[in-house]
């Protein structure tokens, strides 16, 4: 079983030599029967850093994220988190029997919960839908509620497992912009699992590629914000990442 520690900043500083980190994972190993999915993953996410995790389907991205979220009791290795962690899954995972506001407030305590909930919903543009049932929302709205549910916890680290994968292209663009804005406002760190190289390039400070059960590449993204496809350096990096993922990039990339 993975050892989980919640540590204070100074320990982590010393341990990583990287400045404050919100999560440090070392030697993560996970097998399902005979198949070894993670075979010694080491990973550090710094405070306020957005890290994208790329990898082909079945490479173990979700498995890794679940371990970091503390949802996998059978993994080996060590995870140290420092601060609050919140998760957004690929599906919204809202309780169908709770109204939107109650879903966001799930597990919160204190007298100011209603105000905090309302504020979080306003931030994702759903201030009007607090009384709605999840079944009455569109896919994009549901996913925004899920983001609000994570946000209201004031996380230091946001774990996102393909949060916009199921949305249409237009909504996905809006959600990416929303995430960008929220991150600027709140300064949380994020680990963003995605299939989408462009999404990673638009949002991340660093891109990890998971391959063969280990982090095969650790690519810093130094492109200036706001980023776009036609900015210098974007397509070169894109081509490099796609090649690394085993996809030949199209010539006009």
């Amino acid at each position, binding site marked *: 079983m993975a050892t989980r520690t919640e540590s204070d900043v100074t320990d982590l500083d010393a341990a990583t030599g990287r400045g404050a980190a919100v999560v440090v994972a070392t030697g993560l190993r996970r097998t399902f029967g005979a198949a070894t999915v993670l075979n010694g993953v080491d990973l550090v996410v710094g405070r306020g850093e957005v890290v994208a995790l790329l990898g082909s389907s079945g490479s173990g991205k979700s498995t890794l994220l679940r371990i970091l979220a503390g949802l996998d009791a059978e993994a080996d290795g060590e995870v140290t988190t420092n601060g609050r962690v919140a998760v957004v899954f690929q599906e919204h995972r*809202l*309780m169908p*029997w*709770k109204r939107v506001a109650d879903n966001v407030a799930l597990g919160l305590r204190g007298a100011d919960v209603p105000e905090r909930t309302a504020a979080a919903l306003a931030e994702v543009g759903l201030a009007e839908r607090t009384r709605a*049932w*999840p079944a*009455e929302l569109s896919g994009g709205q549901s996913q925004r509620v899920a983001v609000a549910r994570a946000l209201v*916890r004031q996380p230091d680290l946001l774990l996102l497992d393909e949060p916009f994968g199921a949305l249409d292209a237009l909504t996905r663009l809006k959600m990416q912009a929303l995430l960008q804005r929220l991150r600027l406002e709140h300064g949380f760190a994020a680990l963003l699992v995605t299939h989408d190289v462009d999404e990673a390039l638009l949002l991340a400070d660093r891109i990890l590629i998971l391959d063969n059960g280990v982090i095969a590449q650790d690519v810093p993204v130094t492109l200036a914000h706001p980023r776009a496809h036609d900015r210098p350096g974007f397509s070169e990096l894109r081509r490099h990442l796609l090649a690394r993922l085993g996809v030949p990039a199209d010539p006009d990339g």
Partner: protein
Amino acid sequence: MSVTQATAAGTVSGLRGAAVPDSARPRRRTAARRWRRALSPLLIVLVWEAVTRTGLVPDSKLPAPSAVLGAGWRLALDGTLGGHLLDSLTRAAIGLAVGGGLGLVLGAAAGLIRLGDDLIDPPVQMARMLPHLGLVPLLIIWVGIGEPLKISLVALGAFFPVYLNAYAGIRGIDERLVEAARTCGLSALARLRHVVLPGALPSLFLGLRLAFAAGWLSLVVGEQVNAQSGIGFMMMEAREFSQTDVVVLGLLVYALLGLLSDFVLRIAERRALAWRRGLRAT
């Protein structure tokens, strides 16, 4: 039978709620249909009244509906009906509480805990195959012919539907929602309250309705074995004195009890499961 009708009616009203304002025509058509559906039962009662009044069917075999109502009025006034009804209701309430409560506790234990599942489920699944009304002779040997017999019959009838549906409801809960609740920091107890219970509630309601149906049936059978009071006793006694109107009255009371309890449960269900109406509206 009544369950099927109920679902159909629910769907119709659900559609109406979601429809655009200028839907007066379909609405009138639904109202007209409802009247049409009431037509044949009304006709049957009228024919029944006619054939018994004219003596085509002898009064001792089947009294007229009006005569049954008259008997009901008479017995209600002198307090006989109320007394018997109260005794029957008491038996039903105790039996349902014991059987349903036990079903809920054991169903939850088997659904939530692996050890509970391994220990509880196999014997219950085997016992489920026994027709519980066939246990009457054995129950008489065990608990005698008094009140315990009636109550344990009702409890047995109520136990299995509640157990099975509690178990299935808990097992059917989306594991991913439980996981999401964990990431929101909910303790095991809080997850039980916010995820497991509401998630299993639709199934629990189904179990409860089936339990009530089985409970009434068990009560009818139980009250025909050496009862000293209750609606069943009233019917058996009336048969001895050839008061066919009272016998039919008893049947009517049983039917009304079943109908009423199902109606109340359905209202409670609609209130508790309001979130599902949203599912249907979209």
